[in-house]
């Protein structure tokens, strides 16, 4: 019997021991490291489990659900939130189904998050509406998968998905604000964070692409103007820009443009995101071989068509991961609106733990919203990895 055979026939405990000695105890110093880190880890896990299941009092969350998720959003107008949410779930499921088969890992994560929301937050009517949205997303995913080997259906669905995502922002804003809806000043909680992120990326992305194209253009005036906008915007932190939207902008806008502070802050966030997107897209534009546009010109396309159909698609495809990181950064930065005194999710949590009956419950409130933002960011970064794989970015 050779050595390899012994290995193959060794029992499970042997394999486990082999794994341990290879990965944890390969040398004396490694063993010491394992013991030190292991005991530290044990301590942390012990403290975490003890806190989450025994010491913590999560009533601060269940009592203040509304404050954290909707802020000062008026009672009785919640129905306006559901159609956009269903649309997002449906589009998400459909896009995922069109892109790829769900990996088990993604499904486990999604399942955990949905179970968490359903068990912890959604009861009664909300639970039904939320559960319905989940089922809707699953159905949309199935439709997306079914289209895999039906090219015509597939291209039609693709077009529908793209139109759907484009329509989403105006649809959401109209649903919430129009027809006797809710004033922006009353938008709050996590809803405000989501709206800020959506508007920021929805306006910032096209603005950024335009700025990048202007900066890459051969017209000196256009180039100078866009370069100035990009560099000045990137020169200061977002906090400074938010204060500018509060203290400076009103002095410069004509009366008929004086809008709600949330709207002018949204405008500033879109400009800020646009400047960062512009620099990312500029990198993408530079990565496109000049031969591409030369060849397209030679085929008789005009400059507009060359840019729109030849250069931009390749440029943006190359920078999708960077764009998604920018989206994640924007999602996290929406918490900065607390500094201006808006009741976003963080502001709602701060309001919750300053109530007299919940003094000393900062931990629960802050950890809860940290978890909300964390799961959002993690979801986006997983999506980015999936995109990279499907589009083959970084592979040649």
């Amino acid at each position, binding site marked *: 019997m050779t050595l390899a055979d012994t290995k193959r026939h060794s029992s499970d405990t042997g394999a486990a021991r082999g794994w341990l000695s290879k*990965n944890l105890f390969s040398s004396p110093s490694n063993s010491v490291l*394992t013991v030190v880190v292991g005991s530290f880890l044990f301590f942390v896990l012990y403290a975490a489990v003890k806190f989450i299941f025994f010491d913590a009092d999560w009533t601060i969350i269940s009592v203040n659900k509304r404050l954290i998720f909707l802020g000062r959003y008026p009672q009785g107008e919640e129905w306006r939130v559901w159609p956009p949410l269903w649309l997002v779930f449906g589009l998400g499921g459909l896009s995922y189904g069109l892109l790829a088969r769900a990996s088990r890992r993604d499904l486990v994560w999604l399942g955990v998050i949905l179970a968490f929301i359903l068990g912890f937050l959604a009861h009664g009517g909300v639970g039904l509406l939320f559960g319905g949205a989940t089922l809707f997303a699953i159905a949309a995913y199935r439709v997306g998968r079914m289209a895999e080997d039906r090219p015509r259906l597939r291209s039609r669905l693709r077009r529908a998905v793209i139109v759907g995502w484009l329509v989403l922002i105006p649809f959401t804003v109209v649903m919430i604000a129009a027809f006797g809806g809710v004033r922006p000043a009353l938008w709050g909680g996590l809803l405000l964070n989501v709206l800020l992120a959506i508007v920021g990326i929805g306006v910032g992305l096209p603005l950024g692409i335009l700025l990048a194209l202007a900066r890459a253009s051969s017209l000196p005036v*256009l180039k100078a103007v866009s370069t100035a906008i990009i560099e000045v915007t990137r*020169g200061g932190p977002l906090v*400074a820009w938010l204060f500018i939207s509060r203290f400076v902008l009103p002095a410069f806008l004509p009366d008929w443009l004086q809008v709600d502070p949330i709207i002018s802050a949204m405008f500033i966030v879109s400009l800020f995101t646009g400047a960062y997107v512009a620099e990312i897209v500029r990198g993408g534009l530079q990565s496109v071989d000049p031969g591409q546009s030369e060849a397209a010109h030679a085929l008789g396309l005009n400059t507009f068509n060359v840019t729109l159909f030849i250069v931009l698609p390749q440029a943006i495809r190359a920078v999708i991961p960077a764009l998604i990181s920018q989206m994640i950064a924007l999602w996290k930065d929406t918490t900065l609106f607390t500094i201006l005194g808006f009741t976003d999710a*963080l502001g709602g949590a701060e309001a919750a733990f300053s109530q007299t009956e919940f003094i000393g419950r900062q931990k629960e409130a802050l950890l809860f919203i940290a978890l909300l933002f*964390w799961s959002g960011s993690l979801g986006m970064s997983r999506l980015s990895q999936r995109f990279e794989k499907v589009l083959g970015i970084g592979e040649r």
Partner: protein
Amino acid sequence: MIQAAIAAGAGLIVFYLVVKALDLDLGYGFLSGPAGFNFSNQWLTNYDSNDSRLGAYGVGILNTVRLVAIGIVMTTVLGVLAGIARLSDNWLVSRVAMVYVETIRNTPLLIQIVIWYTVVLLQLPRIAEAINVFDVFYLSNRALALPYVSTGGNFGPWLIIVVVGAVAAIVLRSWLRRREERAGGTQHATAWALALFAVVSVVTFFLTGTPLEPDTPSLEISEVGLLSIIGGLQVSPEFAAVLLGLVIYTGAFIAEIVRSGIQALPRGQDEAAAALGLSGYQRMTLIILPQALRVIIPPLTNQYLNLTKNSSLAVAIAYPEIIWVGKTMINNIGHAVPLFVLIFATYLSLSLAISVVMNTFNRRVQLAGR
């Protein structure tokens, strides 16, 4: 044609803004007036509320610079360690590093700072019941006191000698290095230089009669009969919270940069060094990191700039950096436009300073290899 239209449009907007701006007072005269507010954190200055607003802004700059400078050093150490740990052969170590990166990077920095502040630092006991660690650290919700050094009588002369010693050590090291390159073998250049520097500074330290003295904090009853922490380096909870938040947050991003920088190297480098008999530590410091630095430095510079800009989040817990100073002045007397111009100019100068230093460093690293 298009150019002219754009120029005209841009010109119109600028003209409109200028007309609007002319209604405002754009001068900086107000900066010479008395500020009228105090700082919870001061450093290196004895500013008081009768000083000018310019002085107050200077205190704000010092507070920002202190945060950024200490933050950059600490976050680099943390990030490099975590990045190396992620590639460790030890499964447990690499997993812990991965969990650190994935949780911290995906959580908003502001929430982290608020957690450090309200959940950790403000929950420390009052000064009277300050946690006493070995009689050298005192932790309370008003101040964290760490052992520090205070300057004695001959500190000035000694400092000059130490600087001269450092210059001499650098000269010695480069001379030994040149000999090494000519003659081959090793001359232990760094060791000799360090020894020279150590001997010079230690010997003159005693000759000048201990210019630096240890300054450990202690809990004492002050003249007014209140218990307070006296001596040592006292750090406010605001500063500590922002610093911890910035260092740990940026460290997670730097860890990813270091990891990808190391992974960009061909595995053969590490294997060849191992075949030559170098230890794990030697391989990392002599072979891997110097080469990985070329890939690491540009994105690392970016992270330093991010840290600088993110230091503005300190305003959320009222740590008095420049944005806080600006906001306070605007609330008192207005003048928002000139103040924001000043704030942007400050951030721009800080960013430029960091970029210049890092670009110089980058050029040296690139040249060394090729």
